[in-house]
């Protein structure tokens, strides 16, 4: 499995080192009273310094290494890198929080973001490896005969990846502001410089090896606090098995506290325009504009039906299989065999976190219902304002309430004015749950710092992968393939590096107003990928009759339908079909894309013989055809 036996050893030592570092800080905090500020900075400096070191050590001037890590990444390591590439701020920070808030309905994210790997494994990974070039527009250009299709695909790749990277930047800003207390905007800038150190010098090669390290940090940071919570609440350390007890207790406490919206009861969330109202209000405040803010609206027509849940699960699955930054990971393995196995490892490493997230959410919900609800409500003065807060059993205000209230993501309102906190009095943003739970449950600060470092690793690793896609769409697909095929390797790489910086700056700007929850923004990216890439890559491999005009019509029509449904439902939820929300708009986009690609292909000429041979070439693994290095022997119509 490993070509280079020092690799598992190096990362094994790294894991042990990171654990020892965390334990040392924990002991220093508990027994020597190490100040929390120092712990926070120690985690930030250690992890960011580490990523920078790997990034600089992996700097490269070789194109093959810059774009596809030299195609020498073993399946196991590629699985880990794909895991980190995949698990972003949405999985780490926002997903368990959404489960906490939504209950059963949040499971669409758990199933959707894992089930897509089955599609990748069965339908895409081995064929893309066989094709073996640099980018997904490369595949579209070769299969659909030319630069028009390639150009359209490159634009789609940029739209999808940019939406996605904006969500990651939001996550970085959120962690930085809560963690080391800098303003959100400054946090964005510090975090992004961490991204740039990696992807700037070493491209895909540096990104891959940093992602392996980031995976180790993020999974450690996720599993440790849940284990603490499980021990605290049940006395049993394996949270994934123990949270059945949490589910039982949640249901009992819900009945006692007369909470009507049950945690395990499905389909009880109405469609609302809360996100778009919040976003427009923020943009108005920041830019001084006066866009009208719609009245709050809630559409309960489709409650108790599974359609929105099923649509979201499905879109997240086909979106997974259509995301360029994930698809290119299967160019980096040495062989077709390894590409198949590496999807398995990727899902296994992702599974470790996704299997645990429902436990995290359930323990957190149980902790709140049992130990926070029922406390007295009081007020506290801070920075010239009076904040409504919750008083602990000793009558003093709980410190975490104020800390989180200041971020604007947590509010306490005593609705019935009885001075006692009810569950519904506590309004907590889903993005806050994972970061706040260690503190709410009274765990040591080191655990919180560990979680923040893990969240940062998740956001940065995904942002890295996305920036590589955006940069290569411009430098490789537009500049080299379309505009200037004679461009030197040096000038292509310089343009790529410049594009990384431009894309990062643009994402920082777009992330300034918080448009939606992180998971919601990421879901948009999935919808866009589902509406653009999934159908044409699938048909490209499995239907020889699909041709260039069909694919171009498919991508454009699919994106148009996706964006149309998304914008309309986001602004006004009464615009809907079967109660399906803007998050799942890619369902309609994908349907339109399939219909257009098939329809237009059938009324235009079939693709020429060499393209049909090319499809056969991609379908069959064979010694002599496997591309060892780009460009492949594929009959690309250029």
């Amino acid at each position, binding site marked *: 499995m490993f070509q280079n036996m020092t690799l598992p050893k190096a990362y094994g030592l790294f894991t042990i080192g990171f654990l020892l570092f965390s334990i040392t800080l924990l002991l220093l905090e508990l027994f020597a009273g190490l100040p929390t500020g120092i712990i926070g900075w120690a985690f930030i400096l250690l992890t960011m310094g580490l990523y920078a070191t790997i990034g600089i050590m992996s700097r490269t001037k070789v194109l093959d290494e810059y774009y596809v890590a030299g195609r020498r990444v073993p399946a196991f390591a590629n699985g880990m890198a794909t895991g980190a590439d995949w698990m972003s701020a949405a999985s780490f920070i926002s997903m368990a929080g959404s489960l906490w808030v939504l209950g059963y309905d949040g499971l669409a994210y758990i*199933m959707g973001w894992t089930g897509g790997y*089955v599609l990748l*494994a*069965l339908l895409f990974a081995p064929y893309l490896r066989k094709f073996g070039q640099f980018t997904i527009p490369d595949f579209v250009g070769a299969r659909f005969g030319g630069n028009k299709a390639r150009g359209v695909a490159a634009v789609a790749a940029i739209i999808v990846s940019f939406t996605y990277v904006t969500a990651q930047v939001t996550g970085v800003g959120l962690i930085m502001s809560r963690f080391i207390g800098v303003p959100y905007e400054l946090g964005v800038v510090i975090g992004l410089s961490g991204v740039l150190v990696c992807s700037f010098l070493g491209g895909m090669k540096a990104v891959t090896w940093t992602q392996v390290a980031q995976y180790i940090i993020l999974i450690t940071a996720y599993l440790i606090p849940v284990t603490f919570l499980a021990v605290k609440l049940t006395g049993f350390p394996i949270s994934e*098995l123990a949270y059945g007890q949490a589910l039982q207790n949640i249901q009992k406490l819900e009945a006692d506290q007369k909470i009507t919206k049950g945690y395990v009861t499905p389909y009880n969330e109405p469609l609302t325009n809360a996100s778009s109202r919040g976003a427009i209000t923020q943009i108005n405040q920041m830019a001084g504009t006066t866009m009208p803010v719609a009245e709050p609206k809630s559409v309960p027509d489709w409650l108790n039906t599974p359609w929105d849940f099923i649509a979201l699960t499905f879109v997240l699955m086909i979106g997974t299989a259509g995301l360029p930054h994930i698809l290119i990971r299967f160019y980096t393995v040495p*062989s077709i065999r390894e590409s198949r196995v590496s999807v*398995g490892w990727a899902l*296994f490493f992702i599974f470790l976190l996704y299997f645990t997230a429902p436990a995290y959410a359930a323990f957190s919900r149980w902790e709140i219902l049992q130990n926070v609800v029922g406390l007295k409500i009081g007020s506290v003065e801070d920075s010239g304002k009076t904040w409504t807060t919750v008083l602990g059993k000793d009558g003093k205000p709980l410190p975490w309430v104020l800390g989180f209230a200041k971020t604007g993501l947590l509010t306490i309102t005593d609705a019935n004015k009885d001075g006692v906190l009810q569950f519904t009095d506590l309004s907590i943003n889903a993005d806050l749950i994972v970061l706040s739970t260690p503190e709410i449950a009274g765990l040591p600060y080191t655990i919180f710092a560990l979680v923040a470092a893990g969240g940062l690793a998740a956001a940065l690793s995904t942002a890295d992968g996305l920036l590589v896609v955006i940069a290569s769409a411009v430098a490789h697909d537009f500049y080299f393939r379309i505009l200037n095929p004679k461009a030197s390797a040096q000038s292509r790489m310089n343009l790529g590096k410049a594009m990384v910086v431009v894309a990062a700056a643009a994402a920082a700007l777009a992330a300034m107003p918080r448009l939606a929850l992180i998971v919601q923004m990421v879901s948009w990216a999935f919808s866009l990928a589902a509406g653009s890439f999934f159908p044409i890559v699938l048909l490209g491999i499995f239907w020889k009759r699909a041709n260039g005009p069909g694919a171009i019509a498919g991508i454009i029509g699919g994106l148009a339908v996706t964006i149309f449904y998304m914008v309309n439902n986001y602004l006004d939820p009464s615009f809907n079909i079967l109660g399906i929300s803007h998050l799942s708009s890619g369902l309609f986009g994908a349907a339109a894309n399939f219909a257009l690609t098939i329809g237009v292909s059938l009324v235009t000429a079939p693709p020429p013989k060499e393209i049909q041979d090319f499809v056969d070439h991609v379908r069959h693994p064979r010694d002599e055809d496997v591309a060892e290095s780009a460009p492949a022997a594929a009959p690309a119509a250029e």
Partner: protein
Amino acid sequence: MGDQKGSGNRLEAYWKANLRLIWILLAIWFAVAYVPPLFVNQLNAIVIAGFPLGYYMGSQGSLIVFVVLIFYYAWRMNKMDQEYGLRDKDK
């Protein structure tokens, strides 16, 4: 294994066997992901070790099946490549 003509038939048989396997595995994938959401309330009435079954299928049950499906496909296809003499460079 085989001359030019035999090679064409062999490739066709290989592709058919591959498609058949894909269809079977996709059917299992579909069944574990999309059937339980239609019957959550009924499944939730069954509680095993504290877990209501409908909730469990969404949070853990289906995930386990997904992981198994992918490793099975990789194992089966890598074996099939060999059976059809199509194994690509490994080392």
